C-alpha cells in the first residue's frame, strides 16, 4: 500500500514533550509539502496525565482522522496500553524495551477502567498484565514491533558528543519522531530542517537534537522493510498555512480590524487571546502604529462587559471563552442586545455540563448560545466547519456585529481550536470590513442613537464623538437612550430591534448560512454542523464509491436560521440523518423548531473525542442498510 493517508500517533505524559514531538513531526512533513490534519488530546492537568497527538498526513487535503494508526510512537508505558490496539496490520509500535516488564497496575496514571479494557482485549478478564504481553498481543495481530533503546542510544551519543546523557534524555521525543520517519522511509533532511525551526536561536539544542535524531533514524532503519507503509514528500511547490483553529481565528480578527479583546483564562479558548497578545503589535515590532489590546480581566463578566465598553468607544471588540465562562456572560450579552452594541463572542465548545470535560471537544452549546441572555433580543449565532472557515468567519463576525448592531456568537469546537492543520493560503483580498452605519456628519436636530428607521438599524456614534452624544441603558429606552416604560415606545423598540434580524436574514448570502455537498436528490442526506464537516465529507468519500447516493448539508448560520432553504433541501431526500457531537441532538431540535421537519435518525458522539471519518462512515452505512435503526453512538478515541 502507498502513502495515501498516513496516521501517526505520539503519546506520553503531559509535559514530556508530546506536543513538541507532534509539532516537529508536522513541520518535517510540511517541509516535504505534505498536508496535515492534527488532533490534540490531553487531560485537564499540567504534568503527568496521558496526552497524545494524532497527525494524519497526505499529499492532498486531510479533513479528519480515520480509525487505524500506521505508526504509534511511544516512550513510556501508558501510551502503549491505550493505543496499541489501534495500530493497523503492517503498522508499527515504537517503544522503549526497558518498559517491557512494567505491569499495568504499576502505571499510576492509567485509569482502572482503561486497564480493565486492555485486559479484556487480550482475552484476560481480570488480574494484571505486563507491557510485554500487550506488545506481544499487538504483534499477534500483525503489528511490527520496533524496540528503540532510548537510554542506551543517548548514553552512546553522550559519550560521542561529550554531553551529559541526562541532557540528551530530553531529546527522546525527537528520537521517537526520527524513528517514525525512518520506518516510513521519509527523508531525514526534512526533520533536520524542522528541528532548526523548532529550536531556532538555541544552537546547542539544535546540535543535540539533530544528533539524537540521526542516531534514532539510523537505528530504526533496520526495521523499515517490515513496515507495510511508506511516506514520501510531495512534488508540489505550493505554499500553504499550518495553523490551529485558535490561531486562524486570531489572525482573522487582526485582518478584519479587530483591535480589542478581553478574556479570562479558560480551556481551550485562552490560546487565542495568548496568540493575540503575542502579536499585539501585529507582527510589526514596537514601532508599530497599529496594535491590538488584549486585556486579561478578573472574570468573564468583566471580559464581556469590557469588550462592550471598548466597542462603545468605536473599536472592533471581542472576547473568547468556553462553556463555564460563557455562562457568566449572559447578562452582558443581553445588555449588548438591548443597546444594539456590536459584540463578538468566540465560543470554543468543550464537554459540558458544568466543568464537564474541560479539554475535550463537544457540540453541546448550540441551543444555549441561541437562547443566551434573558428576554427577547436579536443575535447572530453561527458556526465554522474547519480551520480555514475560522479565519474568514472571525472577520465576518465583526461585520455582522457592526452592520446589524447586535451580539454575534461564533461557535467553534475544541477539536478545531487545538488541532493543527494545513489549509490553503488565506486570501486577504477576500476580507471585507463593513463597519455598518456610523455617524459621519452631524445630524439635523439632536442626535438620536436609537432613531426609528425602516430597517431597524440606527446610525451609531462612538463615545467621544462630537455631535453624537447619546445614552445607553439596559432598561427599555426611547430614541435618545433614556429610560422609558411607555408601552407604545416599548412596542416600537422591540420591533425595531427584532427587525434587524430579518434584515440580516435577507442580506447574508446563502453560502454563509449553509453549504451543500453531493448529488442533488440523494437517497441519504447527512446533516451536520461545525467540526463534523471534516469527518462527514471524508465519510462521503468512502461511501460514494460504494454506490451510496449520499449528500452532506453543512449548517453554518443558526440565527437567523435559513428555514426555507433547509426545508427545501430536507424534502429532497427520503432519508435524513443528523450527525452531532452531543447527546440530545441539538441541531436536529433546532431544525424541527425552525422548519417543522423532525429528523428521526441520528449519529451522536459525547465522549469528548472528535468524530472520525471511518467510524462515521461505518455508522452511516449501518443506518443506510437498516431503516429501522434510529441512533448510532460513536466511541472512537482514547
Amino acid at each position: 500500500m502507498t502513502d495515501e493517508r498516513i496516521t501517526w500517533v505520539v503519546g506520553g505524559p503531559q509535559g514530556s514533550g508530546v506536543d513538541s514531538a507532534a509539532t516537529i513531526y508536522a513541520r518535517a512533513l510540511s517541509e516535504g509539502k505534505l498536508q496535515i490534519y492534527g488532533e490534540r488530546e490531553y487531560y485537564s492537568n499540567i504534568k503527568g496525565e496521558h496526552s497524545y497527538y494524532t497527525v494524519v498526513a497526505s499529499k492532498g487535503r486531510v479533513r479528519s482522522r480515520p480509525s487505524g494508526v500506521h505508526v504509534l510512537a511511544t516512550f513510556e508505558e501508558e501510551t502503549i496500553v491505550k493505543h496499541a490496539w489501534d495500530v493497523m496490520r503492517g503498522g508499527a509500535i515504537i517503544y522503549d524495551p526497558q518498559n517491557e516488564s512494567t505491569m499495568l497496575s504499576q502505571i499510576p496514571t492509567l485509569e482502572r477502567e482503561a486497564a480493565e479494557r486492555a485486559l479484556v482485549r487480550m482475552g484476560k478478564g481480570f488480574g494484571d498484565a505486563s507491557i510485554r504481553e500487550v506488545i506481544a498481543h499487538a504483534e499477534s495481530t500483525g503489528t511490527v514491533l520496533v524496540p528503540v533503546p532510548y537510554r542506551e542510544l543517548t548514553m552512546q551519543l553522550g559519550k560521542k558528543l561529550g554531553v551529559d546523557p541526562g541532557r540528551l534524555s530530553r531529546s527522546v521525543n525527537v528520537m521517537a519522531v526520527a524513528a517514525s520517519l525512518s520506518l516510513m522511509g521519509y527523508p531525514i533532511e526534512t526533520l533536520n530542517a524542522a528541528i532548526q525551526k523548532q529550536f531556532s536561536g538555541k544552537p546547542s539544542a539544535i546540535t543535540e537534537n539533530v544528533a539524537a535524531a540521526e542516531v534514532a533514524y539510523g537505528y530504526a532503519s533496520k526495521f523499515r522493510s517490515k513496515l507495510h507503509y511508506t511516506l514520501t514528500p510531495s512534488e508540489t511547490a505550493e505554499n500553504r498555512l499550518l495553523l490551529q483553529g485558535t490561531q486562524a481565528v486570531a489572525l482573522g480578527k487582526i485582518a478584519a480590524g479587530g483591535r480589542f479583546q478581553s478574556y479570562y483564562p479558560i480551556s481551550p479558548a485562552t490560546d487565542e487571546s495568548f496568540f493575540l497578545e503575542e502579536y499585539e503589535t501585529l507582527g510589526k515590532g514596537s514601532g508599530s502604529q497599529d496594535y491590538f489590546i488584549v486585556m486579561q480581566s478578573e472574570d468573564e463578566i468583566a471580559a464581556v462587559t469590557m469588550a462592550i465598553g471598548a466597542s462603545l468607544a468605536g473599536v472592533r471588540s471581542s472576547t473568547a471563552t468556553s462553556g463555564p465562562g460563557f455562562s457568566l456572560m449572559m447578562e452582558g450579552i443581553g445588555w449588548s442586545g438591548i443597546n444594539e452594541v456590536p459584540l463578538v463572542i468566540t465560543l470554543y465548545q468543550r464537554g459540558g455540563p458544568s466543568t464537564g470535560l474541560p479539554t475535550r471537544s463537544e457540540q453541546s452549546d448550540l441551543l444555549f448560545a441561541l437562547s443566551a441572555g434573558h428576554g427577547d433580543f436579536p443575535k447572530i449565532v453561527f458556526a465554522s466547519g474547519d480551520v480555514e472557515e475560522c479565519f474568514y468567519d472571525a472577520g465576518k463576525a465583526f461585520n455582522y456585529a457592526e452592520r446589524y448592531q447586535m451580539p454575534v456568537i461564533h461557535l467553534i469546537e475544541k477539536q478545531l481550536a487545538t488541532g493543527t492543520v494545513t489549509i490553503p493560503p488565506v486570501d486577504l483580498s477576500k476580507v471585507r470590513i463593513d463597519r455598518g452605519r456610523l455617524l459621519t456628519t452631524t445630524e439635523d436636530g439632536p442626535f438620536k442613537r436609537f432613531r426609528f428607521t425602516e430597517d431597524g438599524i440606527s446610525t451609531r456614534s462612538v463615545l467621544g464623538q462630537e455631535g453624537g452624544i447619546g445614552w445607553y441603558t439596559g432598561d427599555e429606552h426611547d430614541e435618545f437612550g433614556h429610560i422609558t416604560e411607555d408601552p407604545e415606545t416599548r412596542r416600537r423598540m422591540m420591533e425595531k430591534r427584532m427587525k434587524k434580524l430579518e434584515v440580516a436574514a435577507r442580506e447574508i448570502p446563502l453560502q454563509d448560512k449553509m453549504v451543500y455537498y453531493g448529488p442533488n436528490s440523494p437517497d441519504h442526506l447527512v446533516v451536520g454542523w461545525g467540526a463534523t464537516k471534516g469527518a462527514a465529507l471524508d465519510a462521503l468519500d468512502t461511501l460514494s464509491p460504494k454506490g451510496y447516493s449520499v449528500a452532506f448539508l453543512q449548517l453554518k448560520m443558526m440565527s437567523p436560521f435559513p428555514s426555507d432553504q433547509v426545508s427545501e433541501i430536507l424534502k429532497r431526500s427520503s432519508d435524513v440523518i443528523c450527525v452531532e457531537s452531543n447527546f440530545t441532538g441539538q441541531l436536529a431540535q433546532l431544525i424541527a423548531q425552525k422548519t417543522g421537519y423532525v429528523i428521526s435518525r441520528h449519529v451522536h458522539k459525547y465522549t469528548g473525542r472528535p468524530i472520525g471519518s471511518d467510524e462515521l462512515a461505518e455508522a452511516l452505512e449501518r443506518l443506510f442498510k437498516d431503516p429501522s435503526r434510529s441512533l448510532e453512538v460513536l466511541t472512537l478515541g482514547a
Partner: protein
Amino acid sequence: MVLKLTDYRTEVHNNWCPGCGDFGILSAVQMALADLQIPPHQAAVFSGIGCSGKTPHYINAYGIHTLHGRGLAFAEGAKLANPELEVLLAAGDGDFLGIGGNHALHAGRRNIDLTVIIHDNFVYGLTKGQASPTMGLGVKTKGLAKPNIQQDINPISLAIVAGYTFVARGYAYDTRHLKELIKSGIKHKGSALIDVLQPCPTYDDIHTKDWYAGIDLKDPKTGRPVPRTYHLEETGYDPVVKTGKEEEVVQKINQAIAKSFEWGNRIPIGVFYQNPFVPTFEERLAETRIPAILKVPAASMKIANPDGTPAVDITSLLNRFTV
C-alpha cells in the same frame, strides 16, 4: 466658548426621592465638569444599577447606564479603547462593593485613569431598603425588619489596599467640597475613588441629613449643632505621597487606613491618600509593550480602506505560518 453648568444638564425628568443625597452628588459632578471645561462629548459617565445608576441620564455627556455591579468593567474597556475620554463612574454602594466587588477590587491593580464616585447611603434603595455592604453591624434602619447581621466594608481602606491611587471621601450635601474632590479625582492620573456619604431619606432614618448636621450634638458653649463631618485638609492631614519611596508610601497608606476608621460623632471627609507615582495601566502598556497606545487611541486607528479592504497588511504575520 465657555461651557456653563447648564451645558451639562438634560431635560430628563429626575425621579429620585425628594431629599435624596443623589441630587448633591449630581450637582457636584456637573459643577466639576463645568469648572474643568470638559466638553460634554469628551466625557463618558458610566453607572451600574440602582438609584445611582440613573445619574448618567441627568448629565449631558455620553451616558452609559450598565448592569448591576459592572459599570467599572464597561468603563475600563472604553477608557483603554480611547484614553482621551474623560471616564467617570457613578456607582452605588451595593452595586460597587456588593455585586461588583470583584471588579472594584481588581481595578485597583491596574490604575486605569478614571474616577469612581460611590453613592454611599448604606442601603439598597431601589429594592426598598435592604442593608448594603457599607451598613454597620447591628444597625436597624426603618427599612429593615431586623438589625443588620453582616459587618460593613470600609470603602476607603479597601480602595487603598486594592491599589487605587487617589482615595477620598465626600459628603453629598457639602457640595462645593465634593466638587473639589471630584475635580482632583478627575485631574489625578490613575484610578480615583471617592466614597460619597449621602442620606437615604426614604429607607434610612438613622443617617439622616440632620444626623450628618449633628443636630443631636450640641456644642456646650454655643448650644449649636456640631456637624459630624469635618474637612481633613483643615486638620493638617497630608494625604499626598511626595517622593514615591516605599517607606513613605507605606507610611501614607497606614495613616490613611487608620484615619478611615474614624466614625461616629467625628467623620473625616477629604482626600485620604494620593500617590501620583504609580504608572497608569495605559502608561504600563505604552512603556513595556505598545508605545503607540498613548499616541493613537485604538478607537482612532484606521482599520479599513474606503473600499472595505483592510488598511493593515498582515502578509508578514501570515508568512510565519506558511509551509
